[in-house]
């Protein structure tokens, strides 16, 4: 029998992996993937709460749909920014992207 805390533990594991990826990776694309990992961890949590705790089972799922929408928009925008960046600097290494530091 699946319990709610199983889902929450899975979500905690994936969120922590995403945090590690964002902090440890150099390539902007890999950082983006880690962010996707974190967004998905949140989704698991939302759906778990919706199915187990909400009598209607609706609200959490709707929120998960919104998170997926925002994630899709974010990936599209990030691709555009990475392309522009790559055209200007010929790198996606976040250590070399320091022109907005000041």
């Amino acid at each position: 029998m699946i319990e709610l805390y199983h889902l929450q533990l899975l979500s905690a594991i994936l969120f922590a992996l995403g945090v590690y990826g964002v902090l440890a990776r150099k390539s902007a694309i890999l950082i983006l993937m880690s962010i996707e990992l974190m967004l998905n961890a949140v989704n698991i949590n939302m759906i778990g709460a919706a199915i187990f705790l909400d009598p209607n089972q609706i609200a959490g799922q709707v929120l998960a749909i919104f998170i997926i929408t925002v994630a899709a928009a974010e990936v599209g925008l990030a691709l555009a920014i990475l392309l522009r960046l790559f055209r200007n600097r010929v790198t996606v290494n976040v250590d070399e992207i320091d022109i907005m530091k000041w």
Partner: protein
Amino acid sequence: MSLALFIVAGGLATVGGIGVVTTRNVVYAALFLLLTLLAMAGVFLLVLAEFLALVQILIYGGAVVMVLIFAIMLTRTREFPRISDNPQWLLGAVAAVAVFGVLAAGFLIDRPDAPMPERAVFTLGSLGNALFTQWALPFEIASLVLLVALIGAIIIARPGGRE
């Protein structure tokens, strides 16, 4: 039975997540991410959220990973596809373990006594109904966000302009 399936799917998702943050090859990382996202769709199926599982496969498995692979292809450099990590990776690991500790402690200490429902209470119809009545305004804002992101992406990625 469902718990065994959940452990398989959750284990696959975890393996994929570890692969995403550790592999040296960007393309492998994208494929590991795909593994995680599809395993996640399996988890959604196991907890009766069928519609979300389908959305997950379509949007994440299809579109998002596709866009990420496009990003990898279009930003190739000479050292492609090998990459190295930041020197601060150890700090990142400590932060990640701390985040996991806090989250897991919070989840385990306050465990609500709510058994898994036998069957889904919601139907696809009631989900759509809620989306267009109770959640109509956030829904419209989400569509606006998508539109703005689309236009912004086109303008940013357009060739030419001020370099």
